[in-house]
């Protein structure tokens, strides 16, 4: 992932609401030159047939170069399916369907252009530069129909069938997280199997670690039993992810929080994540990395809360 791709779309970049030709200078120059040559031959020979053939060629050129402009305004791509979760820095594959053959270039998030054909849905890959909740994507649809002489394109905002929660990258994490999951030399510590004096077994409750399941007791009683110690083996770690207003700084902070939470979860610690989502402070435990990623995706200002023009959908 390059720094260029991680940037937000350039501010003030406007979507093409109406079709525009692409790289038209060379085709127009060639077409004009050809027609002038035709006129020259017609004038030189004085032949009406040359002019007649030239008018047909002019018609072909006109339809071939202007026709795609008319067709491009009617292009439409529909997102048929997409995953619910994604991760920043990775590709998001959105299944798209079209009614006419066209060339689709992702604008925001950026991606590689693909050719879409009518019929079955085809995947369009978007490179996700940042975390956030993605509800729409912007694509540039282009066509050269019916004769393939010139490409015309138009931009379209495609609404995704469901919001995609883009988790941040997993950063280095805080010192607390590192401390909880590594020893003083940085090597991985053995996973604790519980501490304190054994007290007995009790029925399983939601939230109990599976490592504490007492299989023999479970087999004896017929219900899931866990070992119970005199004192709690561990305490929850509260991770506060306050994201600043600056997008870059917020992204780095989210990545750091993601790294911390991942390390704690990997160490078997219970993690309570505190975030500000949609203006409301929320403090709740997270069960796994996906859960943490979703929480951090919705934390703070949503980088995907605007289209390529910077407007919120």
């Amino acid at each position, binding site marked *: 992932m390059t720094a260029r791709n991680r940037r937000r779309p350039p501010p003030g970049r406007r979507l093409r609401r109406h079709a525009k030709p692409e790289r038209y200078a060379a085709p127009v120059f060639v077409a004009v030159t050809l027609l002038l040559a035709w006129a020259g031959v017609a004038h030189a020979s*004085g032949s009406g047939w040359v002019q007649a053939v030239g008018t047909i060629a002019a018609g072909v050129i006109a339809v071939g170069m202007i026709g795609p402009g008319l067709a491009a305004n009617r292009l439409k791509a529909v997102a048929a399916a997409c995953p619910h979760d994604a991760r920043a820095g990775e590709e998001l594959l959105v299944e798209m369907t079209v009614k006419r053959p066209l060339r689709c270039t992702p604008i925001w998030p950026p991606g590689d*252009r693909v050719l879409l054909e009518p019929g079955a849905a085809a995947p369009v890959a978007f490179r996700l530069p940042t975390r956030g909740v993605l509800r729409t994507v912007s694509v540039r649809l282009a066509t050269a129909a019916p*004769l393939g002489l010139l490409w015309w394109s138009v931009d379209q905002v495609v609404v995704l069938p469901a919001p995609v929660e883009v988790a941040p990258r997993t950063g280095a994490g805080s010192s607390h997280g590192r401390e909880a999951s590594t020893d003083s030399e940085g090597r991985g510590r053995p996973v604790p199997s519980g501490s304190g004096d054994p007290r007995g077994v009790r029925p399983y409750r939601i939230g109990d670690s599976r490592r504490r399941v007492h299989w023999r007791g479970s087999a004896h009683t017929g219900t899931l039993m866990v070992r119970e110690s005199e004192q709690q083996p561990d305490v929850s770690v509260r991770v506060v992810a306050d994201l600043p207003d600056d997008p870059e700084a917020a992204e780095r902070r989210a990545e750091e929080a993601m790294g911390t939470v991942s390390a704690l979860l990997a160490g078997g610690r219970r993690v309570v994540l505190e975030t500000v989502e949609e203006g409301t402070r929320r403090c709740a435990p997270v069960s796994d990395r996906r859960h943490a990623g979703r929480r951090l995706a919705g934390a703070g200002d949503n980088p995907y809360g605007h289209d390529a023009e910077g407007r919120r959908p």
Partner: protein
Amino acid sequence: MSVPGPRDHVGLIEMVRRANQPLPPENSMLFRLSTLVAVLSGVVACAYVGEISALVAVVASVGIAVGMTFSSMTRQHPWPGVKLLLAVAVVGVFVEFVVQIFGAAHTGELSSIEVPLASLFTWVQVVHAFDVPARRDLLFSVAAAAALVTVASAQAVSVGFLGFVAIWFVASIVGLACSWRSMAGGRWRLPAGGLLGATMLIVTIALLLEVVLPLPRASQQITLPSALTSYLPLGTGGGLTQGGSHPAEPAQAGRPGGAIGIGGFVGMAGPLDTAVRASLGNEVVMRVRAGRPGYFLGSTYDRWNGQSWTEVCPAGSSSETLESGSPFQLPSVSGGAVQPNIQTFYVEQNLPNLLFGTSVPQQIYFPAHGLIVACDHSLRSTIAMTAGTVYTVVSSDDETPISQLIHDDRPEPDGPAMSSYLQLPHPYPRVEGLARSIVRSAHATSVAADVLALEGWMGRHTRYSTDIPPLPPGQDAVDEFLFGNRTGYCEQISTALAVMLRTLGIPAREATGYIPGSFDPLSDLYTIEAKDAHAWVQVYVPGHDWQSFDPTAFVPLAPPNPGAVLLSDIGHGLERLPWIPLGSTGFVAAAATLAWFLVRRRRRRPLTWAGLVALGLERAGSGAGLDRRPAETLGEYAQRLAGAAARNGHPPMPEVNEAVRVVEESAYGQAAGVSPPPQSQAAAEHVLQDLARSLGRRRRLGSQPS
């Protein structure tokens, strides 16, 4: 499917490398086939207009087809050495083109750049056909096909060329659409409706442009068209040849009922005999592309003998042979500098060795080594003017407006000796008296005013008709026309004006040639048919040289005889019909209709004896006005017929019931479909025939089933 992104800025070498790197093979057979058709249409079009020979066209077509097939078969793994071989071949073709250009230019026979260009494009196509593995290569072929058709269209003169243009256009559209499909993935079907709409739109745009754009005019800055299809030197010493099926034979004087010139007009090949009556046909003689259409002058006549015009060089003048080669520069006979009028003639039939053109010719592009300028300044070729010959005449068109001539009463200068143009075979006292009275009554004060007065009188007192009686032997044609029935066509009318002018002392001569025929907007050509041959008068106007006057334009049509006109039109219409295809088509249609009728009749005919008998009884009843009702059984119907017969006075016929029973038993009984015994059949038929006879008509009620 991922496609490359925007190109980065690269150097020239990298761009060249990228341009020459192998491209994905094109797998669309429709694309390849449409490209092949487009290219072949261009090659055949070049052969059609004569830019390449038929042999070259056949060899090139086969080569292109083989090359395309080879390219298609090796598109996945192109042979490595092919590009090098093809490059060498292209260089060879180009060298041949350069040699052809310079060689032709050196000998002065370069008539048109289109011919070597067509050859170059054709052979380049042949070479290129062996290396078209990818879409870009096929698109090059499509573009080259357009170039071929354009080169061919520069020489196209007939509407038949439209067929080649249509084939090329459709094939190119399909090829471009296939190219777009290949660009966009290449697995979907071509949208026929969309392509048809695009085609219609293209045709509409082309038609609009064709209407709006001015027709092209040939530029004099380049070599103008001229070509020969054969080189047949003439040994006539500058005389006229016959044309027609004997293009090199010396011209024969036309005679009534005898051989006449091309299209039935003698004036183009020898003396102009006004006693000859001929019907001019519709065969195309020439096609002309002219900046300003006018009267295309062929020759003029100065000697009149009372029946025929002949050309006799005036004293002090003689024919001149130009040997400068094409283009021939003619000595200017007019002083004024006027805009040149470029006319290119495409000869469609063998013609006399006359070159036509509006007056006054200044420059002739004609691919012969010599050209004869007759004493009347008419142009004659030293080689036979065979079908396919092309030549271009640049005229000065110094015709003075009549409005200027009519007020320009100049004294006669010390110009050329005009005595031969005042020659008359004998005195024309009545004609002179008539002419003087007309001029006097018109108060004419100039030569042009005299001519206009005479033309006006002829318009009021003579009539135009090609259906005129033969000239009586020994009768003067002018006297007969002016004081006889006063009906004639261009020869009689113009001759009368020329003689009237000569009696007034005004030099005049007879001129023959062609008027522009119908205009073909596609080819920008005037189609001249044999019936467009014309005769008019040239009058020497002091200070303005020879000026053309057409008295026929003033003469109204003679009141037609409806029956004669109708018969003539029918005859002409029948004559023009393409009898062979029409007859063949009619024969086939008649045979098919007859076969259909017979089959239909056979299918409708009952197959059993009972059905035949019932049908006969129904026909008999129908003839007597008693049709069988839909719900009526045969027995009920027979009873009704018997009742009708009784009312006609016929004795009762109880045996009808038994006869009908036999018939119904045969049709619907236990032995349905089996004919009863012959005796029963005969008895039943006899009874029912009696019944039919009693109704007033005889019907044969039964016969053996077929």
